């Protein structure tokens, strides 16, 4: 297992919501990894969202904000996993909670594994 370069050194990290990785077998389970971020909506976006709230429809500003935040949380999770020498994360779950008016926590967790 040590004679080949670990995949985690590169950016290649397989993420799935399954319990395994199709086409690979899990060699080792390395435990739960998680990433989270708390983001505040900014005033400008809040103002636009307030206006948009009159007519309804998608709030693009918030969608983008949360997407960015979720990407960041995922990246933190991937960093944690690669520190442990994992090259895949399985059974990923997302969770969101709004802490207060104006701030939201994005949370993602999964199990770091080593696959062949």
């Amino acid at each position, binding site marked *: 297992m040590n004679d080949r370069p670990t995949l985690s050194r590169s950016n290649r990290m*397989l*993420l*799935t*919501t*399954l*319990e*395994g*990785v*199709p*086409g690979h077998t899990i060699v080792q389970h390395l435990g739960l990894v998680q990433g989270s971020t708390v983001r505040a909506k900014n005033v400008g976006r*809040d103002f636009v*969202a*307030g206006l*948009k*709230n*009159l*007519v*309804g*429809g*998608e*709030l*693009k500003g*918030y*969608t983008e904000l*949360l*997407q960015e935040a*979720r990407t960041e949380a995922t990246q933190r999770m991937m960093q944690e996993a690669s520190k442990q020498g994992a090259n895949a994360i399985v*059974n*990923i*779950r*997302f*969770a*969101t*909670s*709004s802490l*207060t*008016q*104006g701030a*939201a926590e994005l949370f993602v967790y999964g199990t770091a594994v080593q696959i062949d």
Partner: protein
Amino acid sequence: METLGIFFILILVGFFAGSHIEKKHLADLHDREYRTRQLPLINIGAKTPIPEADRAKLFVGSVVVSSDYFKTFVASWMNFFGGRITVYETLVERGRREAMLRMKEDAIKWGARQVVNVRLETAEMGGQNPNGVVAVEIIAYGTGVQ
């Protein structure tokens, strides 16, 4: 009197603009759902092995949808009397379809044959403030397999 006038204007704007946006969105959803119909979404897969798959990737689709002034007003009345708040039912349904479509479209671009173990998650954006925006975030995520 003046505040009443503003209130009626907002209700009217909310009603007409809101239903126009909703109608357009529903037509768009219908159209896109038809175009992406070849990609099956499957809820199982966590414990069931998928033998024919050899590549997998995570796909996430998310959307924040908000209510309009008219809906918010009607809902506050419905809240008083109880029962089904139909105006919000259509709102979350639109959001959920949109989120699933975004995930599907991403998966199709990557070349997925199906998306397995799909999960849907809903989060309220408005917080506890009753005067804040009424919006809900819906995300759909799953594993695309080839």
